[in-house]
């Protein structure tokens, strides 16, 4: 049986190449390694099971980001009804705060600003591409970028970016 290729890549290669991107999205949303691992696996499993027709690497990356965001959202919704039996000792993600790296501040932002800023600054997407991935209008993306920067400035307390 012929192996399914995703944008010319084998499944294992896809997992290795885009693991960093998917983990970043998961950590940014879930702030927890254990939950991120669950979502990480579900995301790549959905790629394997659904086998979407993806021809380019850009398309593949955008598909994974979109699915990652949806998966994390669903994961949070699912576990919202559950009550924690006890305080978890799961290590949370600790970002360094003594540098100019403001990823930690990005995590604290509301999701709609966080996604836009992450895609713009971390993944280097353009406004139109972000609008396509998130399903927003381009002007909406610009507005969210502007407001997100302001919120980030208030959290970071710097001169802005």
């Amino acid at each position: 049986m012929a192996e399914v290729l995703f944008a010319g890549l084998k499944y294992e290669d896809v997992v290795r190449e885009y693991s960093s991107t998917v983990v970043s999205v998961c950590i940014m949303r879930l702030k927890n390694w254990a939950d991120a691992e669950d979502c990480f696996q579900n995301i790549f499993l959905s790629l394997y099971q659904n086998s979407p027709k993806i021809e380019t690497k850009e398309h593949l990356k955008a598909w994974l980001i979109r699915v990652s965001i949806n998966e994390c959202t669903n994961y949070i919704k699912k576990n919202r009804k559950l009550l924690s039996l006890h305080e978890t000792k799961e290590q949370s993600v600790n970002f360094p705060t003594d540098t100019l790296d403001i990823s930690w501040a990005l995590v604290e932002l509301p999701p709609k600003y966080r996604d836009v800023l992450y895609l713009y600054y971390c993944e280097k997407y353009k406004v139109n591409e972000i609008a396509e991935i998130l399903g927003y209008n381009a002007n909406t993306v610009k507005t969210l970028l502007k407001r997100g920067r302001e919120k980030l400035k208030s959290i970071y307390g710097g001169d802005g970016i």
Partner: protein
Amino acid sequence: MKKVNFDSLTNLKAPESFIENAINATKTQKKKPLVFIKYSRALAAVACLVIVCAVSLGVYFKEDRVTPPIDPSFIVETGNSKDSENTQYTDKNIKETLKNDKDFDKENAQNSVTDNKPTTESETIEPSEKPSSTTKPTEDSKDEPTVGPTKPSESAKPSESTNTNEIPTSSPPLKPGTNPTTKPTKPSDKPKPTLPDSSSQDPNYPAAPPPEQSPDSTDGTPELPSVSPPISKPDYAAIREYKSVHDYCEIVDYIETKHLTGSKRVYCIVKKRGAGNQWLGGDDWFSPEHICTTWKEKNGYTYFAYSITNTYNITESGEYLYLIYNENGQGFYSKYIYVNANT
């Protein structure tokens, strides 16, 4: 102005265990079936329904069971003609009416032979037979015209004074005080646990068995609204003192007693860390009588412990996540615990 960066997020590397687990998970997961196969059961059910309908319709038309429209002439009055309440529309009366009509047709046919004789206009036709003194003439015999050949159907029609167009309802009158909209109530069902995973239609999550699943309820007899019998308290003396999760490979946790209304049963599913949606368990409810569990009540909490290595046949040590549900469907979760399968 200093330039800030996002290195922490951009350079975030996924641990190798993440990647390995994601790759290995595909070996146990199957690809989604084709749409036709996925909905084959539904298609088969629809096909069976269509076949049954076609067969039943064929039999129906073959037997000429088309119900004739109700003709007002078939309506036969019983008793007082003015009393419309006594008007019956039964098949028996309709058959009798048809029979009477046939007899009447025969009589008319005979009469028409005699009536077709040429008569002069001046001739007055008198009734050939005078009614006997013992029998009183009926109203129909009085009204029956004696002039010329008459159509039998016209004479067979009932008088228009009766409300023949009013079709009475077939349902019997309701007793006073009964509400027609109320339906007989079924025995109240116990609330089923609403798992959060089942709501999202995730096929990979195991579904919790309904709490009322008992071997007694499978005999087809209707269940009476049962009150769960009081469960005898567990023999605390027999409950051994467990030290920690790690020592005994057991899940030891507590649920507030107020959440365990009625019978104390919990439902648990377990998943190995990094196993995605591959949950273990889901076959049984754990009650204090369950051999694998130990229960203990203290300070308003119900502590329970059971061996997941025995219950779920866990042979691989590692971190496991477990979800616990009570009979109300309320879920409790705990993050990963380490299970040593070798002890």
